[in-house]
């Protein structure tokens, strides 16, 4: 290597600001603590207010009471009923979500690939999309029984449209130059799909999953509300029919926590996969 070659190598090394900062929002640790503290304070204040209201202003028969709900949650945990109800709801939601991706991504690809297919299917797609899918729940239970299948289909029917639309948008936004680059090297369609198209929709798939987690939970719970013998939806429904407001609130709290946890899990994997790459 000549002197100039070496100079070339040393001149454009990694820019310092990009070398060691994987996270984009690196707020100070101090601020993070303050935010966390404020959150806990807000939650405690809200719960305290609720508790006070149920003791002095309103009948807990109607609005529940945090201390009762906490007690119920504890009971559900130690009797293992929590696990018993959480598992079917989460697995059905996850299965519906997975099915949506397996089915939705190829359909989205097809839409983006062929202008003809897109134009033919568009009104049908919009028509199906416009049906409030919740209204289909009784039909699904009629068709698929009160087992897990009807809940999975319910979740699927809510999420699959999100996946299709996101895949479609993702493909349309693909950097044309990357495709031209591979075409200029005579790469096959399959190779371009593998190297450019599929990787470039990964952020869109993750966006679908983030939205889809909540929707899939809704689907599974709605299915359980209408016909099931276990699951969080069933627990809420069953409590309500016995006018057990504490039970209803306990079910809702569990659903909220489950939803938040699932979101955090998705975020964790998203960051692992996307880091530095997108």
């Amino acid at each position, binding site marked *: 290597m000549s002197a100039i070659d070496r100079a070339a190598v040393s001149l454009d090394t990694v820019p310092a600001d990009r070398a060691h900062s994987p996270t984009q929002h690196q707020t100070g640790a101090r601020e993070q603590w303050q935010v966390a503290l404020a959150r806990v304070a807000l939650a405690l204040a809200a719960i305290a207010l609720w508790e006070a209201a149920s003791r002095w202003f309103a009948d807990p028969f109607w609005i529940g009471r945090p201390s009762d709900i906490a007690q119920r949650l504890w009971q559900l945990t130690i009797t293992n009923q929590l696990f018993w109800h959480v598992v079917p709801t989460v697995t059905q939601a996850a299965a519906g979500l997975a099915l949506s991706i397996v089915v939705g991504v190829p359909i989205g690809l097809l839409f983006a690939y062929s202008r003809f297919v897109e134009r033919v299917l568009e009104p049908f797609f919009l028509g199906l999309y416009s049906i409030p899918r919740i209204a289909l729940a009784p039909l699904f239970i009629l068709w698929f029984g009160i087992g897990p299948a009807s809940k999975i289909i319910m979740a699927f029917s809510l999420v699959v449209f999100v996946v299709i639309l996101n895949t479609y948008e993702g493909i349309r936004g693909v950097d044309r130059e990357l495709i031209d680059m591979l075409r200029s090297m005579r*790469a096959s369609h399959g190779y371009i799909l593998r190297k450019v198209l599929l990787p470039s929709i990964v952020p869109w798939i993750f966006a679908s999953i983030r939205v889809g987690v909540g929707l899939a939970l809704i689907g599974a719970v709605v299915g359980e509300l209408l016909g099931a013998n276990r699951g969080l939806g069933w627990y809420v429904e069953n409590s309500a029919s016995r006018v057990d407001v504490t039970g209803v609130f306990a079910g809702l709290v569990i659903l909220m926590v489950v939803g938040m946890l699932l979101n955090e899990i998705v975020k964790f994997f998203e960051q692992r996969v996307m880091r*530095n790459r997108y």
Partner: protein
Amino acid sequence: MSAAPSLHLVSPAPAAKQAVPAVELAAVSVDYGGSVLAVADVALQLAEGEFLAIVGPSGCGKSTLLKIICGLERPSRGVVRLRGQPVERVPAEVGFMFQRDALLPWATVRENIAIGLECASAQKREPGVAIDELLELVGLSRFGGFYPRALSGGMRQRAALGRILAYAPDIYLMDEPFGALDAQTKLLMGQELLRIWARFGKAVVFVTHDIEEAVSLSDRVVVMSGRPGTIKSEYRIELPRPRLPREVRKIPNFHRYVDAIWNDIMSEPDRSHGISPDQTQV
């Protein structure tokens, strides 16, 4: 320009040589639907192993010519031949280097360079050089595992250069490959390119709007005028090789070439898209 006669101005339509040219454009015109021509009646020949630069104001159809040679776009009229064969689809002989590096952001430098090798072997062609040697060649040995995001513009262009070297085409089409780099990096990349070109000796078509870059690198400079893009003049650059881009700029003849090309571009009737003298590095 008084110095012009000594500058070996080539006649606009060079006489056909005996050997089959690597690339030949005959009466090529391009319009994008409608009556406005993007490129009008361009005739151009590139010999095997020649380093040809095309300069001209932005929007003069330089890049379009490259895409036509590469089969990514079709001319409206005229013929493009590669080694005597008309270009129908993307020919196997060419490799294209883009102004933006066109690296896959989700692949490491090594994986990006491997794409060139994979595409070469998919065509049952003898791949160029092993990947480690390529990384060494473009000065990225230590950065094979890095993602493009973590690299500077110069390093990314090096990786793109590594990829096209891995693909090992016989004809390199380079569309302002260093246009987005700062002046220093641009010089150094030119230096690297010449070093690698000297080693492999393949034909290069190098599109740029930087006249000094064109003169310092090439054997021949084609000057295009804008809208519609036509070839205005050609200069055979008879500066000694091997060249160091910084050293070659000290040779008096270098500046006579540059001045002559400036004058050609500035003498255009419509200068709305022209380059002004204070914009040497646009």
